[in-house]
């Protein structure tokens, strides 16, 4: 398995490299620059600034320079947040995003799979229809609707929880963002689990388990659920990566200091290094989680081999 992991990383590196290259040239070829957006600067100062950041050199040289810095784990300084390096920003923001995303993922996984399995066992009953309708609602209501609604109801009208802000990350400030992030995922996972469980319950090997008079908790819990969990596991890879790297909507509405905002802010402000940093972080998360999921999958399904 170890060599498999090494090999997977080996094959992921070219992808990462292409993504970095594409992103670098796309953002650099976009009109405008990090210093254009304020009042026009004195030409001399501008020249100094450009020189300091090597903007006066040919683009390919800057690209090589960036790669060189990257190889030394240096993501460069942020242009919009002058006093911070991109690495500093991630160091403070990433734990916040991971905390929120992690909680949301956990809740979604537990609640979603229980709801989905429940609906599948009661297929075509009102319980089932109810779960399906709720799950569809969870998928359809956009986060940017759920977030302000939750904030309005629980923060403003009922005044049970803070309507926004981070408050240093204490529990009460975490609840609403986490719920917002979790709701759509609960919907998706519930539907996925339901479908997979129904299919598993219909499979021949579950029929065998029933024919052999095994108690229903064994038939469902041991034979049906393990097969049903497989599609959920595959779904988790990209989802975990997306959740843990923060959500621009949730962070904007609740005022959470995560890294989800950096992407939009960085791109609009031509904060080249910040955008590149975000692209790299997201890509690495995607690669790592897909690998974790593949390993998990192979552990759950003996038909899958590590090669």
């Amino acid at each position, binding site marked *: 398995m170890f060599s498999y992991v090494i090999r997977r990383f080996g094959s992921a590196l070219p*992808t990462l490299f292409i993504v970095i290259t594409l992103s670098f040239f796309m*953002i650099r070829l976009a009109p405008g620059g990090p210093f254009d957006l304020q009042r026009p600067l004195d030409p001399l100062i501008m020249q100094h600034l450009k020189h300091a950041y090597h903007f006066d050199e040919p683009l390919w040289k800057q690209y090589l320079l960036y790669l060189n810095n990257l190889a030394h784990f240096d993501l460069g300084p942020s242009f919009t947040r002058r006093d911070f390096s991109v690495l500093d920003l991630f160091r403070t923001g990433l734990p916040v995003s991971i905390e929120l995303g992690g909680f949301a993922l956990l809740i979604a996984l537990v609640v979603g799979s229980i709801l989905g399995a429940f609906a599948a066992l009661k297929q*075509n009953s009102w319980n089932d229809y109810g779960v399906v309708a709720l799950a569809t609602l969870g*998928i359809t209501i*956009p986060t*940017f609707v759920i977030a302000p609604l939750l*904030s309005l109801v629980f923060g403003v009208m009922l005044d049970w929880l803070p309507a926004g802000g981070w408050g240093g990350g204490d529990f009460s400030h975490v609840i609403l963002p986490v719920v917002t992030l979790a709701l759509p995922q609960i919907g998706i996972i519930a539907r996925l689990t339901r479908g997979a469980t129904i299919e598993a319950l219909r499979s021949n090997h579950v029929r065998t388990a029933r024919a052999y008079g095994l108690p229903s908790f064994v038939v469902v819990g041991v034979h049906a659920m393990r097969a049903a969990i497989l599609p959920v596991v595959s779904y988790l890879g990209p989802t975990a990566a997306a959740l843990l790297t923060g959500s*621009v*909507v949730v962070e904007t509405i609740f005022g959470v200091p995560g890294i989800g905002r950096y992407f*939009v802010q960085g791109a609009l402000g031509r904060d080249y290094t910040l955008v590149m940093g975000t692209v790299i972080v997201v890509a690495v998360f995607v690669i790592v989680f897909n690998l974790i999921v593949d390993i998990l999958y192979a552990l759950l399904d003996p038909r899958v081999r590590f090669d």
Partner: protein
Amino acid sequence: MSQSDPTIAEEGPAVTADATTGRSLWQDAWIRLRRNRAAVASAVVLLVFVVAGVFGPMVAPHPYDAIYTQYVRVPASLEAYPRADTIEPAFERALKRARVDVGKVTVDGSSVSAPISKDEKIDPRIVRYLDRSDIFHDATITDLNDAVTQGVMTAAVTRELFPFGTDANGRDLLSRILIGVRVSLAIGVLASFMSLVLGVGYGAVSGYLGGRVDDVMMRIIDILYSLPFIFFVILLVVFFGRNFVLIFIAIGCTEWLDMARIVRGQTLTLKRQEFVQAAEALGVGDMGVLKRHIIPNTLGPVMVFVTLLVPKAILLESLLSFLGLGVQEPMTSLGVLISEGAANMRSATWLLLFPAAALTIMLFALNFLGDGLRDALDPKDR
């Protein structure tokens, strides 16, 4: 077995009813879909939305970009504005600006009048102070005395109905939601169509050619997958500015990846089917196989996917608008409206609730219709 008896009863009555007319798989699916009450209800709701989006803005009582400065952020109400108790003060205020003294104001149905007086001559042009406001029109001065210092100012009250209230600029929310529905639906359909064309073309070519070409084409898809969607859209916006066409292109360009994968998978499966091999054994060429066998058989899953793509595209458009990257003022979309509503929700909840409800109901109906379509086209699920 003799030829004189051509209809042989083999294993049970597979062929029933009238033997001459067949029921194609499409007709079967249509019958199943009509039996699905949730899907039919969703289709009706969607039809209402489509009609509202297409014709709504034409028949709406207010233009979507008309600004009523007197009615900034008025709550939703089925009662027309102005309210009786606001007419008097408004009338007085307007006349005060005209620097005349106002007597007792009487409101009579849709007209309002009050005696006015002034130390000097009353300038007849002061009716403009009333006409200029949104509330009054056709102001006239009657019963002037000979010195032109006293008279009666009469004006008609303009009744304005804002069933969903108005926004922070005093624009009718209903009209704006109607135009928002139109924009959202248009972008949803256009973006889906675009990803349909791109995805089906790319996926069918990749799957049908197979081998090396397929490997390379799928590798490209993998790389595009790892580029974040927002990054791509922001760059497009940065390059070309914000406009309607660009947005659906951007969404179409990101959503075709899934479509390409689905179509490729379908094509690969179909290529192995015996009826495709049979066609090849008949000497049918590549084009014939694609036209008669591959494309008709991928149509079902593609249709289901497109139905589910439309709500996704709408959602993405709304997200972009919410982030301020969507259509530009005074044009609007549901995402823009929700974003404004979220900003004003403490003081004006209706600004959030109505657009949010409109978007949610529309997406919900689209999703349910897509589910129904999938069940109808692929009946093994139920």
